[in-house]
């Protein structure tokens, strides 16, 4: 320890020689090696001019991570300081968060919009405990997040008291059931290699969060023998294509189908993926049901039949599933609340599943969904496999073009039914959810737009013309409440520099899990249009209470006890304004929504967050 210290005079004298050059794969010393002298023994004279956390910042920079979302915490204080001062708080930039759950959910939304991971910094104990639910969401949504945890492994160096509460033998143990990989590096070189390995693992489909622990003393101690430290070159893994013979077999099965339906969930990773989905669907002239885990297929395309899934499955003799999270649930159902089984598909329907789900092997959490027998199971990334699959379909000589006009008519009929359904109660107070969606479209339709959460209210995916992969970002993954607001802010951050306007229809209960993310949006100038779906309840749970009361032959009028968020009503506009966010509401008159949204979008286009609170129907 003592020989790591530099006296202040020597340090200042040598400071001018500090360099910041990073070779492509080798870090050179940043500070000229100063002459050392015996320490005076006064603690205040000790200076560590080149802590290990500086090297950690070099490593993080080498991955291309642009942001680190975090609540500040002592177990990574050195890394925090290095990010800010040594790294210049740029790539990565430190994002000040109000809850670790917000940090991770921001990273979750960011990754889906940016196409690459964000970093998250958290205490190895209480921080990861706060973060856990959001990590589980990201796990279930197959989204990469680079988690870093601070921890003092060497008990001999821990300060007494709180620091012991905030240390843990095995930080990864908190999350290991729902992260892809974790490591607790024992040296800086180990850290560099583990970060690169973790980044590769996280971004290789099926993408998932990973956790790297940054040991507190590794952060705070001076770097030893820096010339020997190497930051390994980062080369991302090319996603795997399904085996060619199996894809040909799938093409053959589909070519012979009478009623074929394609069901896609987390299939497209990019706009190229959407294009490839269209090419496959057109080659087969087959209807596509987009389950919306990602934006897979244009809502405007005549083969989009996302609302007709049940009927299409019922009549299908072949179903092609593309990275579907719950394949069993597409072919079968269990009623609620009676739990009665019902088959939806024909008993002899042929099912093909192209997925990487079989590459994920965890036991405890049940996100694998019910086992679904399959006639042809192909391990492969959908987007990478589609060109070969489409080529195999074309080579099979399939000709299904004769049904085009019928399919066009069915698509038009689906759209007309949706609009007719949306018209019901259009002028109602509280405001209908269809009206909410239609009003939001009016201010987005002239923009490059992104709806950061597109399934809690599905009207937008059903009504809006959407053709771009960035339009819809799907959902939380595990339905863990508290995702929507922070994920939307993270997505808006990624979209900020792309000229994409980000909006979200924000449930009230979800916002109240960690409303401090509004402050984060205001502080970091993250432009987002947040339209409150304020039904003043945990509405899903109201309905569950009713179902149980009906099942138990008990009274229904108590269903809002423990489920309603009223008496007093929450002033969401006030909540937002208190944190520096422009806001209006609560709005109860449907006619007042449009003008408020115009004012809000003007703020967003100036680079500010804005919130419009609308009191809505339950669903």
């Amino acid at each position, binding site marked *: 320890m003592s020989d790591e210290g530099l006296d202040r005079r020597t340090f200042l004298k040598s400071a001018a020689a500090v360099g910041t050059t990073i070779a492509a794969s080798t870090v050179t010393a940043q500070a000229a090696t100063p002459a050392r002298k015996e320490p005076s023994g006064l603690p205040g004279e000790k200076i560590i001019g080149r802590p290990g956390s500086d090297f950690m910042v070099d490593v993080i920079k080498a991955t291309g991570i642009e942001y680190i979302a975090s609540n500040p915490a002592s177990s990574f204080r050195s890394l925090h300081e290095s990010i800010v001062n040594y790294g210049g708080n740029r790539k990565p930039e430190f994002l000040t968060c109000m809850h670790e759950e917000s940090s991770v959910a921001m990273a979750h939304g960011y990754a889906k919009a940016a196409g690459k991971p964000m970093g998250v910094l958290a205490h190895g104990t209480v921080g990861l405990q706060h973060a856990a639910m959001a990590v589980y969401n990201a796990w279930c949504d197959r989204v990469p997040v680079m988690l870093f945890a601070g921890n003092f492994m060497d008990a001999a160096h821990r300060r007494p008291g709180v620091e012991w509460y905030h240390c843990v033998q095995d930080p990864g143990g908190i999350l290991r059931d729902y992260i892809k990989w974790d490591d607790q590096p024992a040296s800086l070189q180990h850290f560099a290699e583990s970060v690169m390995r973790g980044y590769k693992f996280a971004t290789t489909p099926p993408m998932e969060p990973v956790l790297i622990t940054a040991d507190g003393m590794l952060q705070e101690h001076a770097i030893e023998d820096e010339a020997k430290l190497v930051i390994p070159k980062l080369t991302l893994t090319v996603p795997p294509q399904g085996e060619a013979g199996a894809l040909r077999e799938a093409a053959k099965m589909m070519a012979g189908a009478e009623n074929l339906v394609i069901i896609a969930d987390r299939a497209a990773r990019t706009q190229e993926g959407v294009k490839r989905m269209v090419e496959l669907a057109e080659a087969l002239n087959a209807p596509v049901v987009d389950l919306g885990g990602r934006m897979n297929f244009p809502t*405007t395309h005549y083969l989009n039949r996302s609302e007709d899934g049940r009927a299409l499955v019922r009549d299908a003799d072949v179903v092609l599933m593309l990275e579907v999270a719950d394949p069993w649930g597409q072919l079968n159902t269990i009623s609620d609340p009676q739990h009665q089984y019902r088959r939806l598909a024909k008993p002899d329907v042929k099912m093909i599943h192209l997925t990487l789900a079989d590459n994920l092997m965890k036991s405890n959490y049940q996100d694998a969904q019910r086992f679904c027998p399959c006639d042809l199971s192909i391990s492969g990334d959908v987007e990478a496999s589609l060109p070969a699959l489409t080529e195999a379909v074309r080579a099979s000589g399939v000709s299904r073009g004769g049904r085009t006009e019928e399919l066009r008519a069915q698509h038009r009929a689906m759209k*007309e039914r949706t609009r007719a359904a*949306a018209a*019901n*109660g*259009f002028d*109602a107070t509280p405001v209908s959810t269809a009206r909410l969606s*239609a009003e939001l479209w009016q201010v987005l339709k002239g923009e490059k737009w992104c709806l950061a959460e597109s399934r809690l209210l599905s009207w937008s995916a059903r009504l809006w013309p959407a053709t771009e992969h960035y339009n819809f970002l799907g959902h939380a993954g595990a339905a863990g409440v508290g995702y929507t607001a922070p994920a939307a802010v993270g997505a808006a951050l990624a979209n900020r520099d792309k000229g994409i306007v980000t909006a979200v229809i924000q449930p009230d209960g979800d916002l109240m899990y960690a409303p401090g993310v509004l402050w984060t949006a205001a502080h970091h100038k993250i432009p987002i249009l947040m339209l409150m779906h304020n039904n003043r309840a945990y509405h*899903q749970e109201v*309905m569950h209470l009713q179902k149980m009361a009906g099942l138990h032959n008990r009274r229904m009028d108590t269903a809002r006890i423990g489920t309603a968020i009223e008496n007093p009503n929450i002033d969401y506009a006030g909540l937002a304004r208190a944190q520096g966010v422009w806001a209006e509401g609560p709005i109860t008159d449907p006619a007042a929504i449009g003008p408020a949204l115009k004012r809000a979008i003007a703020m967003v286009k100036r680079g500010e967050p804005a919130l419009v609170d609308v009191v809505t129907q339950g669903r």
Partner: protein
Amino acid sequence: MIRFSLSILFFASAALAQDPPPSGSAERGREAFLKYQCYTCHGTVGQGGERGAGPRLLPNLFPWVAFSMQTRTPRQDMPAYRKDHLGDQDLADIYAYLRSMKPSPAVANIPLLNFEEKR
């Protein structure tokens, strides 16, 4: 769902001639519709809800017998509202409330629902 609805309508139609709707108060019915939480799934004006919520009740309200059957001994996912906790008069009032509803405007008359399709 369609088969279920048709069978309900068949029996309901047969019964309708013998069992007209009881008299009820639309005003009391609105209060009961809210009190007994019908609106949480079906919307305050019977417009229906999204994803896991209830279907729309209007237009084409079930005939009284079918409506009553579905409320008391529901098929599918709706909770059962039995007489112990929703009296006959309350149910009749709710039915009167739903019958009193004005039809929603047609899609063609709602400019906000005219979405442009690119292809």
